[in-house]
């Protein structure tokens, strides 16, 4: 195990972490502000990736695919919010889970009908297809570095949006006292629709970014959805800062366990059983990590309404 390998894996962890953050930021906004558990967030991620893959496939331009996928998914999300989800804000979490579970079934099947059961390919932009020498003797794919940069930009953008703009002020006010904001003459319904649109847009962004790295296939949103929930729970529900820290932690834990556990176990176990044990431990690592965090802090690292 060379230091370069360790740095490379840490970069992989950061890349996964920032992708999880983009996904988790949308989920935690909707959760924290509207108090809505939206399992269909994973479907929006999938829709974003599929729209981008088909547009990019037809036009040959990844960026065009991204630029089409973001508004389309945001509109799908806003339509969902206006037709179904806004009726669920006052319901308990169980109702929300079930209704959005039904939506997952619907969108998975619809995607299968429109795009067929086979996975699509989405190539990253050609001008990011090379590798960059981040350290002497360590070159790293430019596309993955771009994901890290985009994650940083989104983090900064959300910080400015929430703490410096009028919309952010309304968002914060609406989260702490919905009726008061409505009484002051703000159209809270359309505010919520916009917030949901932002969340859907972030999900689509995560989906498109993930496209060139993972497969664009039906059900792709579900594995990431569950990991995203782990991020949100670890970070603290409703906290964008928590989503960032939680995303990075989970990304690092997952990547480093997958990369290094086999080495560690091989030092004292025969290779065959070492690989089996480390593979199963690695896939469970983030859940174990979450359990440890929650035993220490039941409300997560940065509870928004502490």
């Amino acid at each position, binding site marked *: 195990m060379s230091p370069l390998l360790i740095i490379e894996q840490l970069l992989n962890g950061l890349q996964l972490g920032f992708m999880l953050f983009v996904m988790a930021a949308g989920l935690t906004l909707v959760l924290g502000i509207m108090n809505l558990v939206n399992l269909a967030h994973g479907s929006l991620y999938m829709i974003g990736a599929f729209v981008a893959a088909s547009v990019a496939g037809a036009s040959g331009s990844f960026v065009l695919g991204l630029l089409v996928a973001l508004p389309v998914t945001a509109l799908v999300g806003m339509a969902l919010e206006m037709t179904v989800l806004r009726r669920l804000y006052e319901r308990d*979490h169980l109702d929300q889970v079930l209704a959005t579970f039904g939506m997952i*079934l619907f969108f998975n099947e619809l995607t299968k009908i429109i795009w067929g059961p086979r996975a699509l390919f989405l190539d990253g932009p050609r001008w990011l297809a090379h590798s960059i020498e981040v350290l002497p003797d360590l070159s790293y794919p430019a596309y993955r570095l771009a994901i890290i940069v985009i994650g940083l930009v989104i983090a900064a953008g959300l910080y400015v949006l929430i703490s410096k703009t009028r919309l952010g002020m309304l968002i914060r006010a609406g989260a702490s006292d919905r009726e008061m904001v409505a009484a002051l003459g703000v159209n809270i319904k359309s505010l919520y629709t916009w917030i949901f649109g932002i969340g859907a847009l972030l999900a689509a962004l995560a989906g498109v970014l993930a496209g060139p790295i993972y497969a664009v296939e039906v059900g792709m949103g579900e594995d990431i959805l569950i990991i995203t929930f782990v991020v949100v729970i670890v970070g603290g529900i409703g906290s964008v800062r928590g989503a960032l820290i939680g995303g990075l932690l989970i990304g690092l834990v997952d990547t480093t366990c997958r990369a290094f556990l086999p080495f560690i176990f091989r030092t004292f176990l025969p290779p065959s059983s070492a690989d089996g044990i480390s593979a199963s431990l690695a896939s469970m690592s983030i859940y174990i990590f979450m359990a440890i965090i*929650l035993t220490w802090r*039941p409300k997560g690292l940065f509870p928004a309404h502490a």
Partner: protein
Amino acid sequence: MPSRIALAFVSIIAIGLPFAAAAGGEDYLIGIATRLMIFALAGISLNLIVGYGGMVSFGHAAFFGIGAYVVAIMSQHALYGDPLLLWPVEISGSESALVVWPLAMAVAALFALVIGAICLRTGGLSFIMITLAFAQMIYFFFTSLSEYGGEDGLSLFQRSSAGPLDLADDTQFYFLTLALVILVLFLQSRLVVSRFGRVLQGIRDNESRMQALGYPTYRYKLTAFVISGSLAGLAGALIANQTEFVSPSFLDWHRSGEFLVIVILGGLGTLFGPVVGAGAYLLLEEFLSQVTEHWMLILGPILVLIVLFAKQGLWGSLSRRMGSHD
């Protein structure tokens, strides 16, 4: 009382079904009915914590899958004659239902104890997501168990042996399952009116008040969670026998969602709700899948509509209409 009449009617159907199916040459119906009973059992177990205890577990398939895997793993070791464990005590495989099924319940209960002890430190939304996360963890655990089939799953050589009963015979297996469901329903009907059941429902309605009254609510909730987990383990043991196959897909999170749907569809916190819910859900699935291969496209929106407009569930509204309270 009308509900008594309805119950008698259902009993006649339940007892007469295998004979009618055999006479009519539609033997596959027995299999469907058995499956329905098993899902009803899983629903009953989930209803105990969600409906009576107010703990929304989104990871119930884990205990179901653990029960199924215990049966399959013990059966594989019995088949090959190699012991499952040599140390600290030697455990050899078995195919006896009297050994394996209680063991399935015990192992599921043990997992429920550990998982519940951690999850119940949180509440509300976190609880939903943490139970889901633990179920995923166990799902990945079984996926990586390559000596027991890994992702492909594991076939049973034969069903468990149960003394004079021949479980390979679908009719006898059906009646055993039916008897177990009735037994569990009876026990649950006693449980929910017992002191324990009253306290549990009190916690569901207002936990801080129960705490103020001096009840150790955490312990009550954990006990209910463990009972529920072990019953789900029993349901898992039964499904492994029925399908003679287990795989990680038994623990898939879709399965946990399905169990919640069954409970809601039937009516939360009602005794017979999960049975009605399991029946309605499986029949709906059977019916829709015959109409179109894209039946999920219809099922999804139906779930949304049920949540939005039929909150009481089928049994809930049915029993209300008939003026009975259970």
